[in-house]
């Protein structure tokens, strides 16, 4: 087992029992009547931790995609807009439609990092009384019922909400509900040390953002704290759909590629298949938010099924542009 590579220290206690521990895994400690029992208990604890570590679904997804030479498609959806049942229905459709990872946005009253489309969806969800506990409960159901299949879920959440609940408690509840990681768009690295340590101990991914205004030396520090994948912001500004992607983006992606092994995923402003094609060469995936949320907003006054079909079409177009070979294969298979 992997644990055999690290030393387990066993000591005899004054009462005659044995205490086993491992300096590499400070949480793994056992007291037992015999030396063997104590050692085996610690070995089991370490194995559990390692098994969980190896299986963070985000890492597994990107490893699989890399092996197949494919790109990740990462859609964003606001929890509770128009309601949580609709959110579950969208997650199901996205899971079937080729999503690699799904971001779930926690509505927040003052989202300075988000554009008007996503803010409006947050406002709508909150005006219906949505609570953080409701989001966790809903995600727990999605996880239990495997609504999104094997697709890992990532929380997009303001630090204001995380702080109020208590960072350790928030991360624990998020992980227990079924999230594999989180993005805190208003928590820059200067303020993120404690949270990053907590997340690392739990093998909960803390996805970091790099933007066009991030100086190269700062990007290195951000990458040092990042896990899961790197969220590369494509334009200066806030989330939202745009007509064109800037040329500097490709340059920055090439630079980041030399600085990290982590997958690079591009978000902010991607809404069309034409945006995706030039990114295939330099990115490992794309993140699409506002374009989906804007369509979902119509579920207020149109049948959800029709809106879901449109979203399905949009997603199919983006996935086709992202992985033309895979889509062609899938098309033949069906």
């Amino acid at each position, binding site marked *: 087992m992997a644990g055999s590579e690290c030393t387990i220290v066993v000591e005899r206690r004054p009462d005659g029992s044995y205490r086993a521990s491992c300096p590499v895994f400070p949480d793994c400690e056992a007291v037992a009547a015999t030396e063997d029992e104590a050692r085996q208990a610690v070995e089991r604890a370490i194995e559990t931790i390692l098994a969980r570590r190896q299986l963070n679904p985000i890492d597994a997804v990107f490893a699989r995609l890399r092996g197949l030479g494919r790109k990740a498609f990462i859609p964003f959806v606001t929890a509770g807009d128009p309601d949580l049942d609709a959110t579950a229905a969208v997650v199901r459709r996205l899971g079937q439609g080729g999503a690699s990872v799904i971001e779930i946005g926690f509505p*927040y009253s*003052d989202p300075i990092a988000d554009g008007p489309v996503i803010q409006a969806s947050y406002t709508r969800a909150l005006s219906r009384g949505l609570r953080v506990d409701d989001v966790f409960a809903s995600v727990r159901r999605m996880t239990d019922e495997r609504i999104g299949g094997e697709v890992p879920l990532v929380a997009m959440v303001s630090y204001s909400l995380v702080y109020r609940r208590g960072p350790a408690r928030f991360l624990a509840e998020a992980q227990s509900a079924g999230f594999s990681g989180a993005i805190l768009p208003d928590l*820059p690295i200067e303020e993120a040390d404690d949270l990053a340590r907590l997340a690392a101990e739990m093998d909960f991914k803390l996805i970091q953002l790099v933007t066009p205004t991030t100086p190269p030396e700062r990007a290195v520090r951000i990458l040092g704290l990042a896990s899961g994948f790197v969220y590369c912001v494509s334009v200066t500004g806030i989330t939202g759909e745009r007509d064109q992607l800037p040329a500097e983006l490709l340059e920055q992606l090439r630079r980041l590629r030399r600085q990290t092994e982590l997958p690079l995923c591009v978000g902010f402003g991607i809404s069309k298949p034409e945006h995706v094609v030039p990114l295939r060469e330099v990115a490992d995936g794309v993140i699409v938010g506002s374009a989906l949320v804007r369509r979902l907003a119509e579920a207020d006054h149109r049948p959800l099924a029709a809106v879901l079909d449109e979203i399905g079409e949009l997603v199919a177009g983006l996935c086709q542009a992202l992985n033309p070979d895979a889509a062609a294969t899938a098309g033949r298979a069906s």
Partner: protein
Amino acid sequence: MTLPSSLAAAPDRHGRFGPYGGRFVPETLMDALTQLTEAYRAARDDAEFQRQYRYYLRHYVGRPSPLYFAERLTHEAGGARIFLKREDLIHTGAHKINNAIGQALLTRRMGKPRLIAETGAGQHGVATATAAALFGLRCQVYMGAEDVRRQRLNVFRMKALGAEVIPVASGSGTLRDAINEALRDWMASVRDTHYVIGSVVGPHPFPMMVRDFQAVIGQETRQQCLEQIGRLPDVVVACVGGGSNAAGMFYPFLDDTAVELVGVEAGGRGPALGEHAATLNFGKPGVLHGSFNYVLQDDDGQTAAVHSVSAGLDYPGVGPEHSYWKDVGRVRYTSVGDADALRAFRECGRLEGILPALETAHALVEAVRVAGQRRREDVVVVCFSGRGDKDCFEVARLTGEEI
């Protein structure tokens, strides 16, 4: 408790006042904030920049503002002597111009051609539009759609000064949404635009910078007390929304530990969440608008609705430095409700011939209360942060009078 000398030394280089402050903003803004901090530090240490700032404060703004002995108000209170630091007499009629001139000068120094600002009641918007006109900068002001409706006079003033007013309908359509929208604009425009934040709130370096530009209030007051009274005051009172006039007034007195400092928040209609804007009295530490400080939130961390008759105090957060001063006990924070503030608006007019801004009226209520409990030799100074003309329509509406 921390020594007073270290109080005045805050913030540290991370922008922390004790545990408060810092930067909780999207990565897009981090480089801009780092650059702004460097540009501001260089300007602060530059004698020529300071000379220009003082020049415009004196010849354009009309400083120093008087420290006036309010004889009839003192008689009415029946105790300590009450002095008014007359920020209502400077250009544009409120203290906001001190900061706007400072930041506009800094913008010119950084070579950026465009200013943006948020405004609630419109006073900071007017001050920024004024400074933009003075230095030939383009200016756009974000203002909650609800506030645009309530403060039509100030909207007209900003437009007349050449600024563009952008109504913000998102969220609650008030000051906090205007701040969100201004921050968003800045994220996309940071290369050629400076965001003139109007209070001691937001990410570092804004709380420090705005305090520094407003500290002229306290510096003058301290000097005037020594000249006119021969000693320092016993109590200094100022109203607190975000807290810029109070921060500027209190800061030069921090080391004078014998001087009692009192901040007055908006008690609104009562202590229930949503009925007031008394963040330090009823809030908890949390994150809002890029800074860690006291906030009014629900259990989830969603920003609470706030209420005050005074649009300038109607804010669910408060500056990180005030949060720190509260925790270390250097400043006492209390609150005054709508009804008392409205009474003080009229009483000050009737007794002194001065209509206070409704924000200022909150501080006056507490000053009269404190003075009444003190000896006749004692001195209470009130930061008279602004004049009340802008509030006449609202006061008339509330009392059912026609204008």
